[in-house]
């Protein structure tokens, strides 16, 4: 995936500012198929939440408020992936109501853990869980928001980093480009001074090909990165996979490592397909 914060033609900051006289800019938060964790990242800013509510009109945020204002909204955050015909239609409506739309989290940007269905026979999965799968109306694949509508920015992570989320919200409202980290977890890990798990051979690690943003949390607890922020920009996934294979990581382990929280992200999906089928 390309750098989500690269300038794009539609990156016109004036467009996201409220028209003169309309008061505070409006914020809306919507949820598709997901766990709620990424929108919780906003509520987890305990110190900033009430201040944010002073400068922003929280117009639609079902988890937080019973108040509901119709669009258009200056900034819309969308959590979750599209997995049903109803949500495919809904996300189109959300786009229409959004001056700027930011997809937040692994589900919204890559299809999330539920994109494991993309590699399997979806009706068979439904039969395994439901006594009456005929009641379900679902799509065969779990897809990111960008597969359906134009997305102005994406924030990666399962879950997103709360600081990055607030930065994107604040930058949008201030009319400037957000300061975010486009590089790989590997660089954050070096900055944090952690011993390299691949060099020491302590664990398989996706840090070299995974999008930064977490602060190299897993290597910090002596655990290999499992790629929950999805592929970094131009990742050399094949090279890493070959290196891991040389370290006696089995094909099955490699495939599982790549097929977890951002399994359907193209760089991970393509490489995982080279290591057998589930």
């Amino acid at each position, binding site marked *: 995936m390309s750098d989500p914060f690269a300038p794009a033609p539609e990156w016109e900051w004036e467009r996201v500012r409220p028209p003169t006289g309309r008061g505070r800019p409006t914020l809306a938060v919507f949820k598709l198929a997901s*766990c709620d*964790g990424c929108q919780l990242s906003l509520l987890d800013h305990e110190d900033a*939440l*009430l201040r944010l509510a002073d400068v922003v009109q929280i117009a639609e945020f079902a988890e937080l408020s019973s108040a509901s204002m119709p669009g258009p909204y200056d900034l819309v955050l969308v959590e979750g992936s599209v997995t049903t015909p109803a949500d495919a239609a809904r996300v189109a409506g959300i786009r229409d109501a959004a001056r700027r739309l930011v997809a937040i989290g692994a589900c919204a940007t890559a299809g999330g853990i539920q994109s494991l269905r993309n590699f399997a026979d979806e009706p068979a*999965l439904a039969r395994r869980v*439901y006594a009456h799968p005929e009641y379900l109306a679902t799509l065969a694949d779990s897809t990111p928001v960008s597969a359906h509508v134009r997305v102005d920015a994406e924030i990666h992570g399962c879950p997103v980093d709360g600081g990055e989320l607030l930065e994107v919200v604040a930058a949008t409202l201030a009319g400037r480009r957000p300061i975010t980290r486009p590089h790989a977890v590997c660089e954050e890990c070096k900055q944090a001074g952690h011993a390299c798990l691949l060099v020491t051979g302590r664990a398989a690690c996706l840090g070299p090909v995974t999008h930064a943003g977490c602060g190299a949390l*897993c290597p910090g607890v002596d655990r290999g990165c499992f790629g929950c922020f999805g592929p970094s920009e131009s990742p050399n996934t094949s090279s890493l996979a070959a290196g891991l294979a040389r370290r006696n990581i089995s094909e099955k382990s490699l495939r599982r490592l790549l097929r977890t929280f951002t399994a359907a992200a193209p760089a991970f999906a393509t490489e995982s397909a080279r290591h057998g089928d589930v």
Partner: protein
Amino acid sequence: MATSEPGPPRREVTVPLLRRVEGEGGLRLGFSDGALSEVALEIFEPPRYFEAFLVGRGALEAPDITARICGICPVAYQTSSSLALEAIAGATLTPEIAALRRLLYCGEWLQSHALHVFLLHAPDFFGCTDAVELAQRDRGLVERGLRLKRAGNQLLETIGGRAIHPVNVRAGGFYRAPASAAVAALVPVLRDALEDARAAAEWAATLHYPDLHRDYRLVALRGAGAYPIESGAYVAGPDGLAVSPAEFAELAVEHHVAHSTALQARLGGEAYLTGPLARFAHNRDLLPPLAAAAADAAGLGAICTNPYRSLLVRCVELVAACEEALRLAEAYVPPDPPAVSLRLGQGRGFGASEAPRGLLLIGYATDAEGDLTWARITPPTSQNQLSIEGDLRVLAEGGASLSDGELAQRCEAAVRNHDPCISCSAHFLDLEVTRR
């Protein structure tokens, strides 16, 4: 938010989207000829098939994958998953690892209970649309809740690496034991949190609660010498039920019924309730001292069956979580090694822990290579769904003369009493409402 079809005999009251709950659902009441004919808590969260795609994965991947069911209570999923795998392996945690797991879980209780009590539930008692409006009336109250929530998140971050989907948890324990100094730094935070929690319990005792008492069949872990959080001695239920999680899994039968669109758990064919009211009823004698004193001062008896007063019980549990966390943080010894190693062969095991909103039961089966061959996940909200519908039935029958808007508002607030986590329940719920 309410709509109605014109005139009798058919009247429908709906809340298309429940607000201030985790996940997306609605409710529908139907009246025929003035009599209540239909009550449904509707879930339109898309199914995510966790039980299906866990099959074939490595068992040690299960805690992290299963955690993605819910961003509000990931530690509950990680813990019940780990307990199930530890049961398969026949592993026993060292006391140091067990203490650290309980400390981490206290963080989730603080975070989740503070979120629910102050941001989601409290506005109902003041006629406010949300905590932002509530803060305009009483900023100190909301700020106290946010401080408690922050303390919980600090605990989670210190031990788990991050608050949402912690990275440091594994079956058998942890990847790395937090440094003593990092845990020691939590002590002053938890001391302040304890004072905030005690003040919260005093405040909650002053609220006016609707006088509704329900004949719930209450199910919770019975603590093994301490209030049940990360584990318990057994599952306690109505009529002296005392069974292991594996036995309870046999008794709590999940039904996929058309009228309610969901797999609903029933016990002996009937509704039951998990969560703070159930934990309190089965474990009041195990509350730590300050929490017990707070319960006494608030006038809570041996049992509380008023769903609105669950807010008060949650505040008592906030005190308990602070007390326990403080005790554990002060006594912290880094576990070495940070995890016991698990030898996973063919087997089947169950684990149960007390998620903030109720009992979370998870079962896995593994093959000789330690890969998962079967998974069962029974979250609190699926177990509570029938009891929530029971609450709505009582309110709808008693409030049939109310306007649609008033009745809808009253019912929506009643759903919030139980802090439902619809994201949790949705992984096995129908997308489309099908009525026959």
